[in-house]
């Protein structure tokens, strides 16, 4: 008989306590009840100002855009690695190692390197100069601090690929050969097997990892502060700016922005657990 004790759930709540405390404090700070510039009385002015400020939503939507595009690129690349190199041949093993090698590289290093490669006088600009495409750094299309967020997207996708590739390769290896053989025996082409047998199992297995990387991309401060434009500022950068604002009222807004980021994070956690609960057994 399984013993039901409240202890495990209490321990889990203890691990989450710093986040729950942060949410409670941020909510009180936004309502003017505590923190910098607080009057101690319930005051909706700060919350209303924050929620009706166009800067807030431009920042949130730009961060969502960057996280979505970078995660989509990394997912496509990871799926390609898993599908193109599934066997135990030497080439396949080398390709899998190449894809997963940058796994331990910190986000900060990826962003700093992106700046050196994609900056106005970076390596790419120099190569284009020697190819005769541009004649001076000013002629290089801006890829850093640009509104399209090209360098930021590239740096985040490069950093996300190894983790998604590790998961994708493990998922691909877990797909039963019997299923593939059965489909081939019934006349399916290799492309058809990849599309209708392997891919449906692969994307379900990849989904929790995709959601996790999306959350990290959304909240990445160091990549954004080095590569993103000033306007629209990504949410983590805008939050940090408000924290350091000389005006106490604006400093309080930082907690509101942190709260928005936490809501996005909590929503992603819920989706993450839902996907694991729904498809976890199927792809195990």
């Amino acid at each position, binding site marked *: 008989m399984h013993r039901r004790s409240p*202890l*495990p759930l209490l*321990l889990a709540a203890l691990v989450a306590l710093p986040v729950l405390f942060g949410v409670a404090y941020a909510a009180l700070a936004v309502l003017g009840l505590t923190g910098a510039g607080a009057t101690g009385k319930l005051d909706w002015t700060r919350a209303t100002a924050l929620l009706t400020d166009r800067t807030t939503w431009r920042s949130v939507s730009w961060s969502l855009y960057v996280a979505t595009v970078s995660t989509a690129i990394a997912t496509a690349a990871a799926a390609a690695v898993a599908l193109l190199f599934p066997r135990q041949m030497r080439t396949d093993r080398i390709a899998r190692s190449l*894809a997963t090698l940058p796994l331990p590289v*910190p986000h900060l290093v990826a962003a700093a390197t992106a700046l050196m490669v994609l900056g106005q006088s970076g390596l790419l600009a120099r190569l284009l100069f020697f190819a005769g495409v541009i004649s001076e750094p000013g002629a290089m299309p801006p890829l850093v601090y640009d509104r399209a967020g090209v360098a930021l997207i590239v740096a985040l996708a*490069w950093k996300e690929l190894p983790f998604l590739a590790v998961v994708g390769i493990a998922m691909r290896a877990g797909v039963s050969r019997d299923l593939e053989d059965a489909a081939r025996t019934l006349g399916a082409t*290799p492309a058809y097997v990849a599309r209708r047998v392997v891919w449906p199992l692969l994307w379900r297995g990849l989904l929790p990892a995709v959601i996790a990387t999306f959350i990290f991309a959304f909240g990445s401060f*160091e990549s954004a*502060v080095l590569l993103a434009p000033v306007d629209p500022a990504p949410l983590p950068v805008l939050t940090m700016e408000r924290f350091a604002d000389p005006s106490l009222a604006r400093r309080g807004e930082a907690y509101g922005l*942190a709260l928005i980021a936490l809501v996005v994070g909590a929503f992603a956690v819920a989706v993450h657990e839902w996907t694991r609960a729904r498809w976890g057994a199927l792809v195990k």
Partner: protein
Amino acid sequence: MTSTRLSRDTRASRGASPWRAIAIVLLTISTFVPFVILVVQSSGESWRWPSLMPDALTLVAWRGVAGGAIGRAAFTSTLLALATAITAVCIALPIGRSLAQLRGASRHVAAALVFLPVAAPPIALGAGLQIATLWLGVGGTAAGVWLAHSVPAIGYVALLFLGVFSSRGAEYSEAARSHGATRWQTWRFVLLPSLRGPIVEALAIAFLISWAQVALTLVVGGGAVRALPIEVLSLVRAGQDREAAVGALLLIVPAVAALAALRVGVRRTDALPG
């Protein structure tokens, strides 16, 4: 059957070979170019536009590491990361084991709760932790930053041990207990020896979480705690590319070593697939 499978594999491989070749070229470029750039940048005397290589090579930035700001920051980061790794494993191991006993909806609720500090954007997490460390009197100190780094690290490692304990039954510890072993003896002589691989892995992961932290260190440390990532960030923003590249390479080295330790740890145990 095997020969049929092999011939199918060969045919499929031949069909995809242009794509495989393109993929390998792209993977090679994307994996090695960033490292080469950092190495060249860290030892370039001056690198004027539009040269593809620096005018001359020098080790001046590397020589300055030992007694300079980068060396001090690397030392601070090492201590922080070691303290975080040990704290995280000591706290998260029993929590992960306890959570593995849960079944059904409560298991998903517990996993989601533990995942929260992992998933919370660092700046948002730092907002609450900054207040908590100020209340505890350790705001703006290395001790406060260590506590702050431990929060996401405990979440990660608890999830790891939840997975480890879920994949193995409690038969061995129950057998030890039924043969008269105390709770401590069961931990010391049954559980811990069988967990050597996952513990090495957990230490490596928690070390790396602290080692690469920027936002939490900035918010909780208030700029006073100069860990290596903070130093590198300042150098990049100041345009000191050569010193920044040295710092960036120093950030990569322990990360790669931790990954290697992780792989060795995993290989030495049957607990996780290699």
